[in-house]
């Protein structure tokens, strides 16, 4: 083997050892850019602000400690959301969480969430209807399975594309669509009930 070929081989072997620069090396920038979104997703998933806050911190800590595994195959948001979702799964799987979920006063009531709906220059009657719609949607979301709920929130709150949801959840695209169809069936049924009651 010639010296040149040997040098080329050595360089190609040494290349993976060199430090890879990832977006997470500048953690402060990543946190300031993506924290509101991750916190929002966790809050919507858990409906507990304290827990959402804790898991938001844990998400960024895990992203930073495992930053060497980030290869840039997906966007930073997708990667962070994937970590956040895994944390939600780990947390909600525990019996302790399920117990406290039943008895806790921390979980926010759908009506309370609906009260945050901005009402720019709308009449009082429209406000009441709008607030009821939001509360009803949240109640409908409560009835969804955990997987359906996650997909629904990623689509209709985070406005992720279906392929991105598939990447975050690790669920095939066709299954993501099926879950969304089912979730929308539930939402439409509830919606129809509200419309009938209002009439």
């Amino acid at each position: 083997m010639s010296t040149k070929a040997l040098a080329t081989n050595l360089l190609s072997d040494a290349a993976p050892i060199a430090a890879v620069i990832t977006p997470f090396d500048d953690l402060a920038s990543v946190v300031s850019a993506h924290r509101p979104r991750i916190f929002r997703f966790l809050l919507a998933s858990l409906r507990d602000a304290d827990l959402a806050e804790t898991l938001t911190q844990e998400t960024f800590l895990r992203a930073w400690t495992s930053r060497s595994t980030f290869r840039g195959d997906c966007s930073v948001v997708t990667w962070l959301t994937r970590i956040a979702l895994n944390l939600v799964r780990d947390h909600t799987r525990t019996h302790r969480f399920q117990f406290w979920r039943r008895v806790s006063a921390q979980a926010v009531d759908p009506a309370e969430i609906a009260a945050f709906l901005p009402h720019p220059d709308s009449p009082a009657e429209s406000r009441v209807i709008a607030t009821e719609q939001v509360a009803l949607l949240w109640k409908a979301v409560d009835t969804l399975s955990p997987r359906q709920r996650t997909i629904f929130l990623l689509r209709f709150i985070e406005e992720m594309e279906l392929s991105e949801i598939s990447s975050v959840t690790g669920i095939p695209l066709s299954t993501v669509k099926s879950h969304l169809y089912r979730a929308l069936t539930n939402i439409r049924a509830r919606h129809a009930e509200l419309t009938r009651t209002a009439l």
Partner: protein
Amino acid sequence: MRLRTHLTHKQLSELLLAEPEETSPRLAELRQHLRACPVCAAEIATLQQSLSRFRSATIAWAGHASASRSWLSPGLAPALSSVEPAASRSRFRPILWAAAAVLLATAIPFALHGHRSGYKSGAPQPAAEVHIQQSSPVTDEALLEEIDQTLSSSIPTPMQPLADPTAGHSSQIDSTPRKN
């Protein structure tokens, strides 16, 4: 496909899930139906409005919850403060290695010098033993003196009262014969 009736749930869902800029012959047909059918148009408009409100309320709620919190945990703070770009880490690595080498080169001669001086003083005993020897002469001398005294005396001290069974009683015993 010609749409003679209202849209099915699946078709409505397809329209709800489609991106605004997304185009396909099927979507074009569904959108065409919406333009022609006020019932389906109203149905999808109401759903879209509800979903939009749902999103707005959730964003406002999360914003409110986030604003009222100091969220930086002790676990994350060191990560944030100690973070430096990988490029700068790799740039400073040779300097760190050089500094470590200089420190080692300085420390080794001192260590060797100390080792050799220990041999020159002719003190093969470990430091701990030397310390014990210096601290014990008084005790040893007292012990030896006590042993000497014990050996030089004919009767050991504990047996002294037995040496003369009459000792201590002579004044009480009347040794003069009695006259009957």
